[in-house]
């Protein structure tokens, strides 16, 4: 790493099923304006823009970056679009950070969004591969067999997923940007919700959201003049692997393990569970919490579910996971990864509001995408590395 990079501004929209009150440019401006207010900057202070969103078919609008260039304030400036499926929000933030770390720019605006109400993601994800039956029902249909495999491998108690969903849905009540909120959510309510992709229940599933997230990233000098405390980037990492090959561990993918190992090495972290104060990880279906706890090295293989069952991942546990309510509560797909990264930054800046983890100094942001094949992660801290 060359220059230091800090997150000096974070903005999110109110995420919702249907934001008909704003167009795509309006949705983005809502998040960017908030990030600018936080950072104390305006359009003229930004050197470059890095945009991320999920596949165009999710909204039925091809290459939206063409008409978003002016809404993003990118006219006359470098602009990039990043695409790594569901992990895109994370990899977009990493690309933006690398422009600072490389010493190319002083301030970079990074934005990710999805207006899922404008198309149908399940339709877009139920790929009609030529010469094959269309039977893999969206992301749930793809991931449910992997969850069943995890359950069989680990003999985890059947209600682990219910407990994750309950925790995240309770956390969501403390986050004003949350899309799905169930004020009277209970264990029984989650347990009795309908099976959509057995073994995944309705309340163990992420919603389809309209929403955007923006961050202002800054080099050291610019960060030190910011009005609010910065979050410093301690390490970033990305890894990928093919969807299918013989012997592929789809439950605990090698790319995710390698990505975490590289991340911790750069960040100088030896014991992630002890040294990190909280984590925002990409959990679109409840069971992915215990699965990623193992993949990220927080728990030994086969024991991730114990962290959920013991309450370690709760807001008052030793490693709060998804204090924001997570992807289960808000899922503008293209932005979901960036929201994880942004929420981890808010935690170490002490600006997470009601869902603040007390005294959080070092946090993990995590995103994955495709068939569990793209991974993007960062560690941010309140102290300059």
């Amino acid at each position, binding site marked *: 790493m060359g220059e230091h990079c800090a997150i000096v501004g974070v903005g999110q929209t109110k995420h919702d099923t249907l934001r008909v009150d704003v167009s795509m440019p309006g949705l983005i401006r809502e998040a960017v304006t908030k990030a600018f207010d936080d950072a104390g900057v305006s359009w003229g202070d930004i050197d470059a823009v890095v945009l991320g969103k999920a596949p165009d078919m999710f909204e039925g609008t091809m290459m939206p970056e063409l008409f978003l260039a002016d809404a993003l304030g990118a006219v006359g400036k470098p602009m990039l679009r990043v695409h790594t499926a569901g992990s895109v929000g994370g990899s977009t933030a990493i690309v933006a950070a690398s422009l600072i770390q490389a010493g190319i720019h002083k301030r970079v605006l990074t934005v990710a969004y999805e207006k899922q109400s404008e198309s149908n993601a399940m339709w877009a994800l139920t790929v009609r591969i030529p010469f094959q039956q269309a039977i893999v029902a969206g992301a749930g*249909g793809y991931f449910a067999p992997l969850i*069943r*495999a995890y359950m069989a491998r680990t003999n985890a108690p059947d209600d682990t997923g219910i407990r994750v969903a309950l925790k995240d849905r309770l956390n969501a009540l403390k986050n004003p940007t949350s899309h799905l909120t169930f004020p009277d959510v209970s264990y029984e309510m989650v347990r009795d919700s309908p099976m959509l*992709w057995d073994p995944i229940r309705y309340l163990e599933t992420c919603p389809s959201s309209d929403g955007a997230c923006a961050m202002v990233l800054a080099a050291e000098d610019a960060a030190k003049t910011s009005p609010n405390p910065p979050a410093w980037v301690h390490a970033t990492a990305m890894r990928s692997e093919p969807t299918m090959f013989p012997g592929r561990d789809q439950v605990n993918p090698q790319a995710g393990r390698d990505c975490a190992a590289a991340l911790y090495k750069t960040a100088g972290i030896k014991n992630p569970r002890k040294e990190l104060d909280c984590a925002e990880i990409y959990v679109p279906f409840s069971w992915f919490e215990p699965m990623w706890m193992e993949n990220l090295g927080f728990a030994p293989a086969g024991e991730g579910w114990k962290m959920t069952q013991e309450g370690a991942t709760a807001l008052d546990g030793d490693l709060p996971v998804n204090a924001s309510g997570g992807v289960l509560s808000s899922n503008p797909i293209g932005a979901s990864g960036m929201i994880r990264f942004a929420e981890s930054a808010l935690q170490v800046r002490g600006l997470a509001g009601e869902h603040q983890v007390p005294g959080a100094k070092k946090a993990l942001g995590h995103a994955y995408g495709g068939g569990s094949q793209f991974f993007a992660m960062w560690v941010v801290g309140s102290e300059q590395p």
Partner: protein
Amino acid sequence: MSESLKPVTAIKAPVHLEFSYTAGRASTRFLRGMAQGKILGQRCPECGKVYVPPRGSCTICAVPTDVEVEVTGKGTVTTFCIVRIPSDSLSIDPPFTCAHILLDGADLPFFALIQECPFDEVRMGMRVEAVWVPKEELGPTFESIKYFRPIDEPDASFESYKEHL
């Protein structure tokens, strides 16, 4: 406010896609096999893994998989999902069971439909076989296999397929 003064918040703009698909050499061999009621795969000359359907190269060894092998339609359900949510883009109406099937002699499971069995009686390790469309309907498509159905064999042990999950 009169109807004509209300803001336009959304319009419907349906998308329709048609595309040509270039199968490539390995998939062409596989699809020609399908048209003859055969399941053709390819073996990696270095690690010996068998790809069904073949991809033309081994992802692990990064070499061409030029040894063709034929496998039977018998295999094992390694894991599965019971789909209960309807979608316009699905081939059939829920509930149904979509399984990962590992054919005997192959090293790569693929998604397939299980029928001729109540959807909630499918198990990990269940032994199944391919059910083909009638001979005159065979074509260069995976849809020459209608679905898989259970066969009267004891379930495969978890140990035997756990490397493929």
